[in-house]
């Protein structure tokens, strides 16, 4: 059975390598100061989506992302791996969103896409580690949710109801869960890794861009864009998705950042020892004498 699958993907700053200029005065992230990558767990989600598509002929996979124009790269990365289409939500009104305002924006876009069977994203993004957007999108759309998915086992139609079966990881164990479609799924980083880019698809889509990614004076490929409409990626503003600006961005965010401080650990007075037998034995004796170890 043909499924319409939307993958939620985020372009994230690579937080493994944070410099001093990474935060703005308002306490939000200065993304331009860090290398931007495809959020790792969203790649795990994309893989599950592509597998579902292969198991269910006629299915389509689209990548939905929100961010500045350069986040169009996320859609291209998806197309290179086998996605069929993508949408970039981009508008200054979306800026400064907390998880709730982000979820509102994504939910309006999913509603606009329409007739979606499966919404699937990574469990959480490495810049926030909150894991909140998936469940909040599900709530805003009134859909079922299954989080912490390890493997999507398949979709079956029983008495006219399409149901997905997934294996998920819970604290200290595993669960197998069945949920009727449409459904929102979030996928763990321990799920199957995403397939690599396909060279033919890279050739096909490497010039694909959102209109805002193109310089105003035009590009060398304007004739190509005219000839091949699939090279112009979908780009939506708040108005395009019929969004309510008061629920977007900073104004739609109930949480406010009161303060940000850098972490500085107070250095302790420490004893430095060598690996010699004498040093180690005297430390052990000291700890035993003081009954710190028994």
């Amino acid at each position, binding site marked *: 059975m043909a499924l319409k699958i939307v993958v939620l993907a985020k372009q994230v700053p690579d937080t493994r390598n*944070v410099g001093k200029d990474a*935060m703005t005065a308002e306490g939000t992230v200065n993304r331009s100061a860090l290398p931007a990558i495809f959020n790792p767990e969203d790649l795990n989600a994309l893989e599950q989506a592509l597998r579902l598509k292969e198991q269910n002929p006629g299915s389509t996979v689209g990548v939905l992302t929100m961010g500045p124009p350069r986040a169009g790269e996320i859609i291209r990365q998806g197309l290179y791996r086998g996605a069929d289409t993508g949408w970039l939500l981009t508008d200054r009104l979306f800026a400064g969103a907390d*998880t709730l305002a982000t979820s509102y924006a994504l939910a309006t876009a*999913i*509603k606009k896409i329409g*007739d979606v*069977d499966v919404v699937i994203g990574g469990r959480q993004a*490495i*810049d926030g*580690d909150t*894991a*909140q*957007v*998936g*469940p*909040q999108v*599900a*709530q*805003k*759309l*009134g859909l*079922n*949710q*299954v989080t*912490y998915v390890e493997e999507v086992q398949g979709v079956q139609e029983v008495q006219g109801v399409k149901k997905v*079966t997934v294996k998920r990881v*819970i604290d*200290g*164990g*595993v*669960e197998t*869960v*069945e*949920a*009727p479609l*449409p459904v929102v799924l979030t996928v763990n980083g321990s799920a199957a890794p995403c397939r690599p880019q396909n060279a033919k698809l890279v050739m096909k889509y490497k010039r694909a861009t959102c209109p805002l990614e193109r310089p105003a004076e035009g590009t060398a490929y304007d004739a190509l864009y005219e000839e091949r409409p699939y090279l112009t990626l979908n780009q939506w503003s708040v108005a395009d998705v019929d969004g309510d600006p008061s629920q977007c961005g900073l104004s739609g*965010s109930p*949480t*406010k*950042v009161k*303060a940000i401080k*850098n*972490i500085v*650990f107070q*250095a*302790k007075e*420490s004893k*430095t*020892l*060598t*690996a010699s*037998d004498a040093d*180690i*034995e005297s430390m*052990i004796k000291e*700890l*035993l004498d003081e009954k*710190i*170890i*028994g």
Partner: protein
Amino acid sequence: MSIVMLDNQSAKVTTPLAHGRGAGGEAVFVYCEIEETHVQEVSQELLTKGRKLANTLGVELHAVVVGTAIKGQVEDQILPYGVDKLFVFDAPELFPYTSAPHTDILVNLFREEQPQICLMGATVIGRDLGPRVSSSLTSGLTADCTELEIGSYEDKKNDKVYDNLLYQIRPAFGGNIVATIVNPEHRPQMATVRSGVMQKAIYEGECRKEVVYPEVSKYVSPEAFVVKVLDHHVEAAKHNLKGAPIVVAGGYGMGSKEGFDMLFELAKVLHGEVGGSRAAVDAGFCDHDRQIGQTGVTVHPKVYIACGISGQIQHIAGMQDSGIIISVNSDPDAPINRIADYVIVGTVEEVVPKLIKYYKQNSK
């Protein structure tokens, strides 16, 4: 099939900001998580924290627990932590947990009770349920808080001052900064906290310990039960890393899974447990459930022996409150050495066997 946007406006909770001291409204709530009839430790830790917050605010501490055949089984695991009122929702199919029924119970209960704060464990359940509830109520939620305090907030843009807000303090951005988050206008103020971050204690003060058993069908519609758990399998924890008095932790510097074997040996002779840094876990040197740090377990042992751990901030966040910290590292400038009481400069291959040897020789 069609997808309809839910109208959140009707659910918007904007309680007045003056804090009542009545018996019911504006309480601090804790969602107590269970496995069958066993209340999770993280929930008891949050009850202790919630009691302190409630005392600071001069309000009551309420708890809610949702499950199947729990009446008479869970009350004694919850009330001793200082609970004034406990709501027990007991009905078939409420265990194992699924998102919609638990969400409906909390959302409808909170509409009646108007709590000002709601705390949950940053567990698989809490991180599934919290966002769904917060989205339903359009209230803010902060994940994985490491500290919770009460304080004021000045909104300079709108020239407004808010008193008695919940400061939701959490590391952000890979642990390089700590952010204090507030929800000035929306209630309840919601936060999740990981297991082990707070410490539980039986409450010595006065509290009401009232228990009520609301009728579940008034809170949940039958349509909420469409997601079915076909198989639920939980194993008892293989170790007690969180409660161990001595923790031997290895980092990427251990080099391999086999390298961890000597840490298990050291832990065994010291009657401790083995943990690992995120780098060691990611490299497959030790199991994920042994990860210590901001995104793993937080530990407070008497002695913490860090072997081949450089000391990323996200790791230090999970062990800095240890009693005595011993760092074994061939790099004398490893960041973890700054917070260590003993720094042994040397390779783990050389030092760890000597620790075992001299402990065995001297401990009798």
